[in-house]
Every structure is written in C-alpha cells, then in structure tokens.
C-alpha cells in the first residue's frame, strides 16, 4: 500500500470545492433566458378533478405558461412505471395503476402534481400557482396499509382490486409448517417498521432545456443514476430518443435512495421547456420533499420463529403488509420482496423459511428504496425475534445467536441467497469486547443507584449488496441489468481520467476510485480525475445505490485498468526491448524487473499517442473500456451493540455507547468507510428513536411535513460511535469488496430497541421510541 493507494486514509480530493462554497448543485446552474417553475399540488389525499381554471394564473405578473395534465397527455408523455415485475403466488402479474406525471382526472395523495406554472421568478411562479383554480370532488382516503385491505376501504386504482398490488410468497410453506409442528418453543412478534422520509439535505431539483435548433433536450437533475434516468425517460416517458436527451447529475447533496427514482418533476420540466420555449428550473422546497420524495419502510409484520429443545432455530414464518403509497415508484416492488424476504435467514442456519408479502396501495406518498431498502426491515424482524427469544428462553442473547450462526461457506439459504463468505462470530466477539459486554451488569447496577434504567442490545445483521448479477435479477423480474461500466483514459501526457457509471453524492468516489489507479500505476493521485454524472461524457452506467459502487463500479474500473496495463506493458516491452512478462509498472514507471531499464509513465503514454514506435499492428492510444457484471451479490455483515440509559421519570433515552463491528471485505479508504458507517448509524438511530412520517388517518394530510414536525437526528441526539472492521474478503469480485454504504442503517435500529426494551423490561415498544412511548411502556409494564 502506498500513501495514496488501496487501504490508505487519503483526504478527499472533492472536499476543496465543497468547503469553499464552490460545489455546483442543480440550483446553482443558471441558463440564459431561464425561467422558474412551481407545481400546483393536490391539497387532498383523494379526490376527483372536476376542472382546472388556469386563466387567472396566466394573467399574473411574469407568468410564461401554465400547463396541465391534459396537455401533457395530448403530447403523448407517458405514465411513470415500476421497473421490476413481481408475480403473485397465483401467477398473476403485479397490478400497476396509472401514474401520470401531472394528474388528469384524479389525485391520490397530498402533493400529487396537477399543473406546472412557469414564470420569470420563483416567487411569481408560486404566486401564480396559488391562483390556479382546481375544482376537486373529495373522496374518502386510506393511509394505513392494513386498513386499505379491509372490505369497504376506499379504492385507489381500478387495476388493483382491494388495493392489493401483489400477494407474493417465498420459501417453503409445507416444510416450515412441519418445523413448527415439531418445535419445542415458538416465539411470536408483531412489529411495525415505521415510515421514514429520506431527507437528503439538498431538496430535489430539475432544470430542463429544450434546444429547438437541434431538437435536443438537456436535463440537470438531482439523480443517483443519470443514465437510468435517460433510459427511462426515453423508453417509457416519450421525452426524446436517447441520442436527443442528455442527463446531467452534477454535485448532488445526498440521496439515500430517494434520488434513484425518476419523478414527475424532471419529466414535466423537460416537456415544459419545449412548450414554453425557455429553460425551466424547478427546485423543491423542504415541504415538497416531505410530501413527494419517495418514503421508506412502512411495514406491518407478524413473525414467528420455531426452536428445537436445544435452542436451534428450525423454522421461520413471516407475514408482511407493505405500504406502497399511491403509486408504484420505479423500484418499489423489489424492496419488500427480493431486497427484504431474501435476507430473512439473517446470519443464521435456518432450514425452513416461509414468507408472504402483500403490497398495498394507500393515499400516501409513494414508498421505495431508502438506505438499506428491505434489509433494515428484515434485520429488524430477525434481531427482534432473536432478542425476544433469548429473553423468553432465559438464555444469553449473544450465545443464542452464536449457537445458530452459519459457520460454513458457501451457504445456501432457503430464500434464494447463497452467502459466499463471512465470520459472524468474529464480528460478535469484536463488538462485545469493544463494548465491554461482560462488564455491563456492573454498569447497570451503578446506573440503578442513580435512578436510571440501563440496557444493552445486540444486532447481528447481514445484507446483500453489490446488486447484482444481471441474468439473476432479470430472472427475478428486473427490467434492467445491474452491471457497471468504466473507461480509463490515459492522456498523452500521462494523466488519467476514469469515466464511471457510478455516481457520487457524498460517497467520495473522486478519491477512492482514484486510489485504485494510484495503486495500479504508482502515479500521484492528483494526476487522476474521476468523471461521472453526465450521459454525454460517460458511455453508460447503472448508478449508485445498494452499496454497489465499490463491489460493482470499482470492479468495472479494475477490468478497464487490466486492459490498459496489458497494453502499456506491450508498449514498454517494445520500447525497452524486453519480454512483456518482465515488465512491472510501479512508482510511475514501466520497468524491466531486476534491471535498471525503465520508461517513465508519461513517456510511455506519449509513445502510445505519437505512435511513432509501437509494436507491429498495434492501434495508437491508451484508453480502454470495460463492463463488469457481478457473479453474485456480496454479503456485508456485522454486529452492533447499543447501550442506553433511560430516565424512568421522563422516558428520555440516552445512548451511552454505540459499537459497530463490520465485515465489509477489503477496504480502499478506511476514513471514507468509517464515515459511511457513522452516517448509516445516525439514520438507524433516527428511525429507532426520533423519526416517523405520520399521516392523519382521516384526512390523509401529512402531519410531519417540515423539520418542525419530523424529528431529524441532531448532533446532541447522538453519541460518538466506536467503529471497527474485521474483514473476510469477498470471493466474488476482483477487489474482494462487499460494500459499506447501508450497513449502519440496517444494523442499528434493532440494537437500539433491544437495548431500550432490555432497560425497561418490556418488549411492547414501537419505533420511534419517543420519550412519551417509553414513559408509557414503563408505566404499562
């Protein structure tokens, strides 16, 4: 490892622009003649649109245009789609209701877009949006997924009887029933996984520009995957063919999943730019983000775990009702199915599993992937079951887990996944040691003397990352392949540009990706640039989500580097009159091993481009492209320990220590990896203690639509974290990487709830465990 190579804690190259205010986010772009958009949104959760009168709005100062869904449909703009097909257990395809970018006849959630107003200034656009008169005929609304399935519930889409999108099964029902029939102990829980709002700090934004002369569109958008945005907008929304549509995702202020999806606003801004003849920019405000960004989680689950007399898990039954909101967002169907139920084996050897998932429409914002996406929900089920089981069986929670750990690999679970590598006991041991788990009883006694209730909770999580083998996900219903592409361009002066289909919105790719190149060729990291986020520059890509940029994105770069290295060695061997097999590339030079003969890297690059003296038949240049399709998912895993003190008088929970011991496989930049874990834990602790999106059950109004009402974790809600890794390399990709972006959010909620329930002595507690709920639980108990 060099000081800038693999494994080094290199300070981030991208930081300079961010700390000096020179980052460029979508709202920072200004085009000549650009106008500003505001959306007219439904104030009702469910209503028919009887009419829209835009005349008063059109007459307002500065207004350039007011456009509605009817005009959008007339122009042939397509409906939004969900790109992952799920079949119900009876073989029928999922029931997808129509989602027009601007509602035409009916609105189905508060915030549903109805019209767009374009004006000289943002203020004028908003004023005029208020003057658009929409006549609504209100309909009864339903916001709770369980209630939406009941007879007589309001119906959202004619395509989906009883609001049921699909009724899906995984695993083996008969074997599981047999396991339960012979069980010595059965543990049952009912849990709610609370609905969350992702809350990237940069609100979503879109700037659409139609160039009439070229009949070409450009879209600057807050996207985690600009190429997917272009593909979907071309193939399904009829904006323009791909060669006539450029999508740019510049600096993006956080995503956490919410910026994967294609939303109505970017489609409408592009269309409105053509209609009005001016560039159209929309920047959401925070309330619009709360109302219309895809939310996360929102599961209601009943789960049962069967044990034999020796406390080994012999079966698992899970029934989950997943709230999908008013429309099926782009990847919504994959989240509570292949990203959730396939992880229900956890870290444990469970011979029989059966899960049923019902996907349900409600009059709420669409629900899709949010950091962890399905895996936090699965981990919460498994780790609440394990902790509850240990309490009911009267055994150590750590030892019950250890007894059931999978210890041999590869391990085929009953729910599709084949785990390739791991050492779950190592993470458990590391976490218990770091947390001084053995010393906890003394700390509990000491706290008791101070009148505080102290508790400790474990969580042993596993996730599937590096999504994913294209053929495998294709067979499971994915509409796209989930490979990644890269291009490595060695310039004639020896500097290197890496073009990647991954997208960085906080992950530090400009640094960690460059470390790969530095490691390979020994060139200074400042001579390497990472280019991403522009469909005109990067050939193709599937973007960043599911902790895939390391395991998949970097693997594509490795493949391209292999090709560059091979060609460079051929050129060097020719120039140095040596055997190709004797050439080594290090310290910025191509050398003949064991001799003092060498050619500097920049000279070799120049030779490739002058092409005066290349091996016979070789093409000039030094630039290679690669596509990498993974052979398997990767399986990051680890153990988290949370220790809390609860004040029984107030119900306030204080996290007194939080320990994370993760197995991410090989690591490129430990500093960046630790930062990912910190952020993930904060979001998981937020889910456990603070955050929850609440709709009024009657009116369907979002009651938590601002930072005054939705509790974001603040600095004084959190402790400093103790993080460490104990790594088993992933055998499935060339760098041995597993992924680290979501682990914190996946592993931490059950650790927190296990700790609080340990402290207060009752398992009846739902997330978020607010002081009011904890106080009430203590008294009820």
């Amino acid at each position, binding site marked *: 490892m060099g000081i800038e190579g693999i494994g080094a804690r290199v300070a981030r190259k991208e930081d300079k622009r961010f700390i000096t205010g020179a*980052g460029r986010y979508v709202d920072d772009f200004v085009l000549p003649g650009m106008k500003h958009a505001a959306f007219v949104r439904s104030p009702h959760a469910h209503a028919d649109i009887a009419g829209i009168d835009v005349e008063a709005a059109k007459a307002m100062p500065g207004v350039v245009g007011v456009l509605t869904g009817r005009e959008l449909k007339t122009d042939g703009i397509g409906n939004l789609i969900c790109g992952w097909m799920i079949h119900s257990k009876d073989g029928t395809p999922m029931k997808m209701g129509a989602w027009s970018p601007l509602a035409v006849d009916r609105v189905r959630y508060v915030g549903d877009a109805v019209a767009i107003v374009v004006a000289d200034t943002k203020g004028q656009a908003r004023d005029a949006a208020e003057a658009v008169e929409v006549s609504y005929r209100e309909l009864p609304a339903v916001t709770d997924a369980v209630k939406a399935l009941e007879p007589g519930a309001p119906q959202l889409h004619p395509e989906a009887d009883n609001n049921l999108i699909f009724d899906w099964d995984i695993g083996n029902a008969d074997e599981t029933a047999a396991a339960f029939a012979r069980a010595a102990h059965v543990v049952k829980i009912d849990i709610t996984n609370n609905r969350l709002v992702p809350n990237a700090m940069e609100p979503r934004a879109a700037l659409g520009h139609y160039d009439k002369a070229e009949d070409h569109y450009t879209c600057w958008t807050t996207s985690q995957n600009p190429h997917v945005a272009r593909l979907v907008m071309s193939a399904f929304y009829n904006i323009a063919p791909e060669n006539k549509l450029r999508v740019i995702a510049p600096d993006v202020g*956080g995503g956490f999943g919410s910026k994967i999806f294609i939303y109505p606003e970017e489609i409408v801004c592009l269309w409105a730019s053509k209609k009005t003849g001016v560039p159209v920019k929309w920047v959401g405000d925070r309330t619009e983000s709360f109302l219309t960004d895809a939310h996360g989680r929102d599961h209601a689950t009943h789960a049962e775990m069967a044990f034999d007399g020796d406390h080994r898990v012999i079966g698992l039954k899970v029934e989950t009702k997943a709230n999908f909101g008013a429309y099926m967002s782009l990847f919504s169907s994959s989240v509570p199915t292949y990203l959730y139920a396939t992880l229900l084996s956890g870290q444990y050897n469970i011979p029989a599993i059966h899960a049923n998932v019902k996907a349900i429409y409600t009059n709420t914002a669409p629900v899709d992937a949010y950091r962890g996406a399905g895996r936090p929900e699965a981990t919460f089920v498994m780790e609440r079951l394990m902790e509850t089981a240990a309490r009911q069986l009267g055994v150590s929670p750590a030892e019950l887990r250890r007894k059931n750990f999978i210890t041999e690999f590869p391990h085929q679970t009953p729910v599709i996944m084949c785990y390739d590598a791991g050492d779950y006991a190592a993470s458990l041991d590391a976490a218990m040691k770091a947390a001084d788990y053995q010393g906890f009883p003394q700390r509990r006694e000491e706290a008791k003397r101070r009148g505080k209730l102290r508790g400790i909770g474990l969580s042993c999580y596993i996730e599937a990352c590096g999504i994913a083998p294209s053929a495998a996900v294709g067979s499971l219903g994915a509409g796209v392949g989930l490979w990644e592409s890269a291009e490595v361009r060695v310039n004639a002066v020896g500097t290197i540009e890496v073009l990647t289909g991954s997208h960085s919105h906080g992950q530090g790719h400009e640094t960690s990706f460059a470390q790969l190149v530095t490691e390979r060729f020994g060139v200074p990291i400042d001579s390497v640039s990472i280019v991403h986020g522009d469909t005109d520059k990067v050939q193709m890509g599937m973007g960043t989500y599911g902790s895939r940029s390391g395991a998949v994105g970097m693997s594509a770069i490795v493949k391209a580097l292999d090709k560059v290295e091979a060609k460079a060695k051929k050129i060097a061997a020719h120039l140095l009159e040596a055997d190709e097999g004797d050439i080594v590339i290090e310290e910025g030079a191509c050398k003949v091993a064991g001799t003092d003969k060498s050619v500097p890297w920049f000279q070799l690059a120049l030779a490739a481009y002058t092409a005066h003296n290349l091996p016979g038949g070789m093409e000039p240049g030094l630039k290679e492209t690669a596509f990498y399709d993974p052979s398997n998912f990767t399986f990051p895993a680890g153990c988290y320990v949370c220790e809390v003190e609860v004040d029984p008088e107030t119900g306030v929970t204080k996290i007194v220590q939080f320990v994370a011991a993760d197995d991410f496989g090989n690591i490129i930049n430990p500093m960046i990896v630790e*930062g990912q874990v910190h952020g993930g834990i904060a979001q998981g602790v937020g889910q456990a203690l603070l955050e929850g999106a609440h709709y009024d059950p009657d009116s369907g109004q979002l009651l938590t639509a601002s930072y005054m009402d939705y509790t974001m974790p603040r600095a004084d809600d959190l402790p400093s974290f103790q993080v460490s890794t104990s790594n088993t390399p992933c055998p499935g990709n060339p760098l041995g990487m597993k992924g680290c972006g979501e682990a914190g959010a996946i592993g931490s909620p059950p650790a927190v709830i296990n700790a609080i329930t340990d402290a207060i002595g009752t398992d009846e507690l739902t997330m978020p465990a607010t002081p009011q709920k904890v106080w009430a639980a203590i008294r009820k108990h």
Partner: protein
Amino acid sequence: MSEVSMVVNGRQVGGVVEDRTLLVHYLREHVGLTGTHVGCDTSQCGACVVHVDGKAVKSCTMLAAQASGSNIVTIEGLANGAELHPVQAAFKEHHGLQCGFCTPGMIMAATDMIARHPDGLDEATVRAELEGNICRCTGYHNIVKAILAASAAMSAGGRKAA
C-alpha cells in the same frame, strides 16, 4: 421594491430587490454566491448560515433589506486567498463532510462557535451548539471531531500569537 446595499466578502454590492427577498436569495441570485444553500423552509437546517456583522445568522431568516448596511461574510469569503481557514482545513482533514450540501452552513456556524469560546470547546458543547445545523450524511461524528480540532488549533495559534 427595496434598495439594498451591503459589503459581501469585502466587496460593496447593491441593487433593487423585491421587498420579500430573503438575504439567502439575494446572495445566491443577485450576488451570484451559490455556496450558501437552502435546505429547508423553516429555518431549521442551517445550510444558509452566513456571518452578518461578525455573527452567525441563518440567511433565510433575514430579509435582504434588513441586511442592508451590514458587512456579510459567506463561505466563499472565509479562506484567505488560497489558504484555507482553519475550520475549512479541519473539515477536510477529519472527513467532516460527505455530500457537501450542509457544509458551508456547518463551517460558518462552527467558525462563529469557536470565536465565542476562545478558551476552547468540549464535545458536549459542540453537539449542543450544533442544534441549528442538520447533516444527514456524517452522523455528526466527524463534524464534531473537526470542530474540536479546529478549536484546539485556533486556541493554540491564538496563544502563540499573544
């Protein structure tokens, strides 16, 4: 309409704006300084913190007209030419930022915090004082570390200079 005039990062600027123009929008849209960000509409997130006459202020809570006559420093004016301010340097060294969107407000708030605590800061104080700045990426761990490091460096520097 209101006529406004102020010094921003040492430069005199002015013009006529709508009465309702907030300072943050004036800075972003009229002065062209887009480093100051808008992350919410309820003055909670702190992405828009600038210094007004030496004090940290959320520039979304103040009309441009109210700031007329003031001396404003934004994130773009914090460094001394190519030399980073110690707080900027500490954020980079300690990985106190990820997506960078909250960062300008964090750095401006931290600079003010350190100035108000010349004898140094402890972790509890830093966390309490960050109440008005929200970050979704870092879990605050490295932001707290960066501010403590910058505080220590600046106190040491101050003592040396004295």
